[in-house]
């Protein structure tokens, strides 16, 4: 599904140069559930941003669905992104001024899906995420777990091939965290590829593979099929 080859990302300010990613080469196949772990500042989020095409690498190659996308411009990246990738963030990132329904509907608007089709799709995911009854509420009126379910709903409403989850359980207590993990597993079982950054070894084990990053480098890759719960 995606493959990186010696991916490098360097952040420059006027005086300091920071290497966030240092020759990262990974390959992730369709249908995988990959967890990425590592200490703060090791480059997890940077890697996610590049995989999600929110940012371009400073060097190296990135093949997504067979295309070399690392040199794509913003418009091209936006096009691939909105058709193929859904995002879930630690801080939910819902738009406060839009209702739950409208937040979930947003990706479909940018994909120019017809109104009736939109309605059907949004209702379906809201039902799957069991928050249909809160569809007319605003994000602040929901608990953190509920908000994250909305974020997951938004990520999958356009039926993406890949879901990128950046510490999706980071702001949640354990029961809500478990809930979100079940959702992700459920999606993965339906065929969606999931890449998830986490600090929690327990949640990392939900994945079929764990990639450990340290100082911008991949240090280990563990396949842990046998440990799946």
């Amino acid at each position: 599904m995606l493959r990186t080859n010696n991916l490098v990302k360097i952040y420059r300010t006027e005086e300091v140069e920071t290497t966030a990613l240092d020759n990262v080469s990974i390959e992730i196949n369709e249908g995988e559930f990959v967890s990425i772990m590592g200490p703060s500042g090791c480059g997890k989020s940077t890697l996610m941003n590049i995989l999600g095409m929110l940012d371009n690498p400073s060097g190296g190659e990135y093949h997504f669905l067979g295309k070399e996308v690392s040199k794509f411009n913003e418009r091209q990246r936006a096009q691939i992104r909105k058709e193929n990738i859904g995002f879930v963030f630690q801080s939910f990132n819902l738009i406060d001024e839009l209702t739950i329904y409208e937040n979930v509907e947003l990706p479909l608007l940018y994909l120019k899906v017809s109104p009736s089709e939109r309605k059907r799709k949004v209702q379906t995911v809201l039902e799957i995420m069991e928050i249909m009854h809160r569809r007319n509420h605003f994000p602040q009126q929901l608990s953190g777990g509920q908000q994250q379910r909305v974020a997951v709903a938004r990520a999958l409403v356009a039926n993406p091939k890949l879901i990128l989850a950046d510490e999706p359980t980071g702001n949640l207590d354990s029961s809500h965290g478990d809930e979100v993990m079940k959702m992700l597993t459920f999606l993965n079982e339906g065929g969606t590829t999931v890449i998830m950054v986490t600090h929690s070894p327990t949640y990392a084990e939900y994945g079929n593979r764990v990639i450990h990053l340290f100082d911008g480098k991949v240090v280990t890759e563990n396949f842990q099929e046998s440990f799946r719960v």
Partner: protein
Amino acid sequence: MFKNYLKIFVRNLWKHVGYSISNIFGLAIGMTACFLILLFVHYELNYNDYYKNYQRTYKVQQKVLLRDKVSIDGQTGYQLASELKNKIPEIENSATVGFVYSEYLSTSDKLTFSEKYGAYADNNIFKVLTFEFLQGNPENALSSPFSVVISDEFAKKYFPGENPMGKIIKSSKNKSLRVTGVTKNLPYNLDFRPNYLVSMSTYKEVAEWKYYDLLENIGSSMFWTLVTLKSNASMQSVNEKIFNFSDRYVTNNYKKLYLKSLVDIHITSDERNDTKIAMYYISGFGIIILILACINFINLSTANSFLRKKEIGIRKVVGASRFALFMQFIGESLFFSFLAILIAAILVIVFLPTFNNVIARHIEINYARDFKFILYLIGTFLVTGFLAGVYPAIFLSGLQPSHVIKGNLSFFKKNRTGSSRSFLRKTLVTFQFYVSISLLLAAIFVIKQVNYMNTKDLGFDDKNLLICRIFGEKTEAHFETLRNELLTNPNIIDASISNNAPFYGNWGKEINWEGSGPMDKMSINYNSVSYDFINTYKIQLINGRNFSRQYSTDNKACIINETALKTLKWNDPLGKKIDNNQYTIIGVVKDFHQYSVHEIIPAYYMILNSDDLKESGVFGIRIKPNDKDKTKEYVKSQFRKFFPESIIEIVPFGNEIDFGTKGVWEIVKKLFIGFSILALLIAANGLFGMISFASQRRVKEVGIRKVFGANSSQLYTLMSKDFILMLIISAAAALPSGYLVQITTPGAYKYQMQISDYLICIGLMFLTAMAASLYHTTKAVLSNPVETLRYE
């Protein structure tokens, strides 16, 4: 998608309702002020467009070639109109107009009105200027003597509920005028807007100077000559043809004719740019106010857009293109601007009556009809919306989503773009300061200038002086007898009669002098006065003597003013003769203002003439300051004895007089005061927004400084440092504007700006800035560091 944008827009509007209202209203008020000003300027620049052929209608004026200058004479002789039509084929129609100023008209004893403005004309006037007749026939309405054509408004005043046709109106000269036509009311923006038109053949009957219609007097300054050119004629070629036109009638002619278009006469009838400059000032003011309001709008929008960065990030993550975001923010800005323009369109209607009152005009606006004004509104809305939105739109749509989705404000502080944004905002606010201080300086100059004009030494004593005028029958009585009667009252110090008094009437002509060549002429104002004129008005005699009853030769004597003496360049003027050697100079008076303190005092001479109580005379009566009302009553009773049938007008000197400042400059003053306060408020609003934003960003810095021991006054200084620096830069930049306004303001006498005036302006700006910044600065200084540093 549009629905989605609209929802976000409306919900944001609602969420930051205070910000939204201040932003929209700030912009709306700026727009309103600008529109009102532009309406006024448009009104002034489009005078006389009521008449159908106004674009090819001209007034014939004379360039008077004098020894030292060229002056403009807007009036011409009686025969000019018909001669021009006969001899110049390009002229389609022509008409002569004579004016009646200050006349009392009546239909009965009860219905007597003072009419300020009437005219003599014949039927040709209706061929040149298209009056719309409700009754009567423009072909013959003014054919016979003593016929009068009146406006509908005039008819309703004199003949309420009656048909005025054929009815009689009596003039104060006891002439009976028969109504032969009623026209539709004329609009107010006309330079020729008589309340009534009397047939020119009537003038023949009443004229005091019987030679007015001789061809040799074709250049005398008495009438307006109006012409309409044929539609294919060129003004330039007619101008060439008529330049020397009067030469064939007048020997040694020094008055050259030219056409002045009807469109221009309102602004530059005397070929001077005073009014035009005033219009430039005012338009500039209006546009600057709008720019100030726009800058606020831009500042507040950019500041506010920071709160939207999370939304932008999310939209990008879920697939929004940069263009879609750009359009979203431009759209919002346009919508803001649209709301503002709607409010402004309403505010214009609401404030127009007050504005009309202030500027003494009759501006009307009708959105259903004034398509052009609607276009202005739409244009302003689009330009403002786009300009205000384009910067935030470009910036925000270009944000990297990976930077904003973490919800990390500090990104903006580290980022170079962030500091260039704050630089832009500071520049804009500094510019606002600069403009505000400049406007204040201009306002202070204009206020002081107008006050200076209003309180300027007139050269005579205008206090405790009564001015009397008589409208009606001539009398055989003697002025000296009347004067003696008046002087029996101990409260009356002196009295005189003259053809004109300062600011009451003003006659000018061109004269030669002892030793001048055949083409040498000087323009001079003249007056004929009784013995006690100089004493009554307390004019200062600086050389020679006053007229005296002791000298029988004084009826051939004259007294000139200093300016006349300077023009004549005589060391010893006494005994020299002027004006065809008619008058011998016996004295020189100090210059005094005759009709406008705005203009340089013209050369002037007075001769001893009227011992007769002429109806055209002006009586000046010097009284004591005590018991003024009683004295006035006494004066009235004495005049009643001498003029039993006439209308007697007695007013303290200065009532209703235009000292040369009350016209357009009084309006400029009022507008400058109002709008500079507005500018100050707009700048304050902008500063308030900017400081609110800056203090939010610096709350952490303040917290850290507090933890490490900064006290409140140090923090105030820290927070105010920026805007004080901005104030100093802007004040320095604004200093020349005061001088610029001073040198561009027309007029012979100008107020000199003082250091204190500059200090007042800067002080006002400083106080406004302090007041605007106090709230947020205090909030930041008093904030609890435990709270502000918690999230670190």
